[in-house]
């Protein structure tokens, strides 16, 4: 038994009978009933995903703007950087660069060219257009794509195709409408989740990343899911609890110097980890580890114990543990 004062705790207390198994079954029963009632009453919050098909059908002009940015290198994934490619658009730290390209992704090839090559076996008219694009110089491709992206600001939809004022787009306008049609068909998912070595399709990385950028952000904003909206702690379905245990990292994300940094994601997550470290080493931080003693909340928690031992100081030594 620790000596009085050495560990800052009492040594005078008794053990009282307790049916521990009943205690455990009781808490399990409480949680089971609570969770079952909540599940029956409220169900589970599910917001339908933004499929590539849905986005192509609902926002054809914005869809083509996104796919065009895969060709001129301005897309979120086209310019991302490690671990997907050698871009710098989302390069937040040196360590991110050191880790390197672990999950290779070439937005132009993987998102546009390869899916269209497959589509061309069904629609051979795609092949010459694709060949013209593929045989052009990189600078020419970017110029066509830049011109087309600019023109899409005045794009309209006619007969299911996006139409823009005439200009120097080379084959890009046709390719983008072919990509739109592929998206609308629902076949893009199969074209993106390819692995000729296996028949399973566990890795949906390219499907998930295809809509990175404007489409997902546009869909997330009204649901209050963006980082600047404390998104991680919000449910996609209003009224349901989200991952509220991430409140501290979400709060850190709002700090101006974090929010305005190009490395905002890494800083917020890193500082969140620092907060956890402080929690974990609380017992070893002089001063901080005395705060509970100073706060005195323990007096409420052990109210009965203190009351008992103040009112009845004669605890017989033979009853001590």
């Amino acid at each position, binding site marked *: 038994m620790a000596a009085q004062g050495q560990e800052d705790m009492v040594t005078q207390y008794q053990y009282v009978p307790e049916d521990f198994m009943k205690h455990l079954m009781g808490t399990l029963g409480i949680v089971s009933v609570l969770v079952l009632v909540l599940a029956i009453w409220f169900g589970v919050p599910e917001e339908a995903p933004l499929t590539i098909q849905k986005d192509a059908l609902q926002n054809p002009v914005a869809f083509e703007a996104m796919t065009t940015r895969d060709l001129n290198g301005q897309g979120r994934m086209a310019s991302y950087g490690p671990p997907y490619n050698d871009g710098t658009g989302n390069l937040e730290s040196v360590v991110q660069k050191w880790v390197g390209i672990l999950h290779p992704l070439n937005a132009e090839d993987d998102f546009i060219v390869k899916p269209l090559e497959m589509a061309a076996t069904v629609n051979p008219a795609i092949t010459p257009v694709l060949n013209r694009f593929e045989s052009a110089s990189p600078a020419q491709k970017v110029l066509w794509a830049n011109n087309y992206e600019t023109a899409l600001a005045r794009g309209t939809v006619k007969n299911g195709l996006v139409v823009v004022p005439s200009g120097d787009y080379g084959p890009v306008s046709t390719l983008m409408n072919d990509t739109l049609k592929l998206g609308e068909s629902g076949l893009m998912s199969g074209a993106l989740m390819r692995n000729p070595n296996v028949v399973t399709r566990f890795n*949906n990385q390219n499907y998930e990343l295809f809509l990175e950028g404007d489409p997902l952000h546009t869909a997330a904003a009204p649901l209050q899911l963006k980082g600047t909206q404390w998104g991680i702690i919000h449910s996609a379905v209003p009224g349901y609890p989200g991952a509220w245990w991430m409140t501290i990292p979400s709060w850190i994300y709002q700090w101006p110097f974090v929010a305005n940094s190009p490395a905002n994601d890494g800083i917020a997550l890193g500082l969140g980890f620092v907060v956890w470290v402080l929690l974990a080493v*609380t017992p070893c931080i002089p001063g901080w580890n005395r705060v509970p003693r100073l706060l005195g909340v323990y007096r409420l*928690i052990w109210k009965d114990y203190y009351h008992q031992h103040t009112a009845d100081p004669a605890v017989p030594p033979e009853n001590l543990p």
Partner: protein
Amino acid sequence: MANWTSASRQALADLLSVDTWLPETMPEYAQGFMYMLGSLTASSFVVLVLSGVVLAANGPASWSYNGADRFAAAVHFWAVQAFFFFMMLHLWRVFFTGAWRGGRKETWLLGALAFLIAIPTAFTGYLINGDFYSQWNAVQAKDGLNALGLAWVNLPNAGQMFGMHVVVLPLTLSALIFGHIARVRLKGVVPPYPAAQVQTHTSKEGQ
């Protein structure tokens, strides 16, 4: 070198003892609702594992077309809410009572580690759900991990997230929770701070 079997028998004797895991008495100060919070958290974890086993057995997207599995997903969802709710209350209780005193720092650390690992355990579950929340957060949260050099964990890869969520993280979390509870049982629940009156009384007792 010492006999490994003897050393293991010695170490496991207390750890696997019925007296450790099924005590028939408790300290008088460890009573009431405040001392149910840890058990409520552990009970929530049990419900999580049971509902998770149902979901894993039927496949990760079965909830989207099977009503019974959708109910299992609802149970899983509310169980994780209960888990974090009770864990947070438990955390407040152990903080306000300075529960690391008396050689209980490791107990605190194991609890803190369980809290840390519980976060990605829950998050990967959200990621393999396949709804919009899942889709959005897989794409958004990758940036922070990539920036910290953790790109090996590829959030948009649902296959990797499935393995993380149903095997790697829950096993890790289970081990941490086991270690945490084992330490609580072996070391006991921290005794109260010596309040002024009790201190006086104790010092008299000690005379």
